[in-house]
């Protein structure tokens, strides 16, 4: 059952990325291009997502209780705004700004037929694999 809900959540996520057109890197780049062809759509995607998730979280999720199909909520415990967080966010921003693709839309575009997406994902996986060393350098 846990696997069914994971699949449903994934399908809804891919559906939402497609409906909101966030699968189109140009929409993302135009959101980031504040002084040029500014397209505020991505901002409203976040508003829509936060309205549903934020209100749902505060109404339905009690972190000390149990999720419906698992023993406990796996929530991040880190609180400090530390060096890995800041450096990681900077590096992520550099990559995201270069082509307008982040991990979710990359996956949602796997079946788009654009072969470069697969190259992006392969490079991303390698980056994730080697990041452990960088984390140790910073902590």
């Amino acid at each position, binding site marked *: 059952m846990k696997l069914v809900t994971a699949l449903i959540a994934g399908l809804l996520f891919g559906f939402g990325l497609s409906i909101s057109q966030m699968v189109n890197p140009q929409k993302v780049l135009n959101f980031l*291009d504040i002084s040029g062809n500014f397209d505020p759509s991505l901002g409203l995607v976040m508003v829509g997502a936060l309205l549903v*998730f*934020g209100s749902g979280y505060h109404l*339905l999720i009690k972190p000390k209780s149990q999720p419906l199909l698992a023993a406990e909520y796996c929530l991040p415990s880190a609180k400090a705004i530390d060096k890995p967080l800041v450096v990681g966010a900077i590096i992520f*921003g550099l990559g995201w700004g270069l082509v307008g693709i982040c991990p979710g839309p990359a996956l949602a575009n796997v079946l788009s037929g654009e072969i470069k997406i697969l190259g992006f994902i392969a490079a991303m996986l390698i980056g994730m694999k080697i990041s452990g060393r960088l984390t140790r350098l910073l902590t």
Partner: protein
Amino acid sequence: MTDFTPISALVGGGFLGLAALILLKFNGRIAGISGVIGGVLQPTGDKDWRWLFLIGIMLGPLLATPFTERVDITLDASWALIISAGFLVGIGSSLGSGCTSGHGICGIGRLSPRSLVATLIFMVIAALVVFVMTHWLGA
């Protein structure tokens, strides 16, 4: 140039929030795409739900075809740029413990200061990259 699409952005964003809420309420897991991918790359751990969630994201856009205009995704950026961007996105999301979904939606939705800081940083950095690329380098 892309048009501002407020309705589809809000509705699509709402589905992203719903997907994240379902994964948390049922499975007790955060719908951070980079985090879920990172878990698949680990040698051990609970991988089945992760794979199904990720496969769902890949297939989700197919469900959206009746509701949204099909935009053929073509990446004009060079292979070198795509690979560099993917690599940076991989390192940055892993080091910074999250991407646009994990920090931008789930983290901010839970009012996490770490996620708010990370999201502000990667948005500002990405906007600067776009500014330099389009207005200085004319890409």
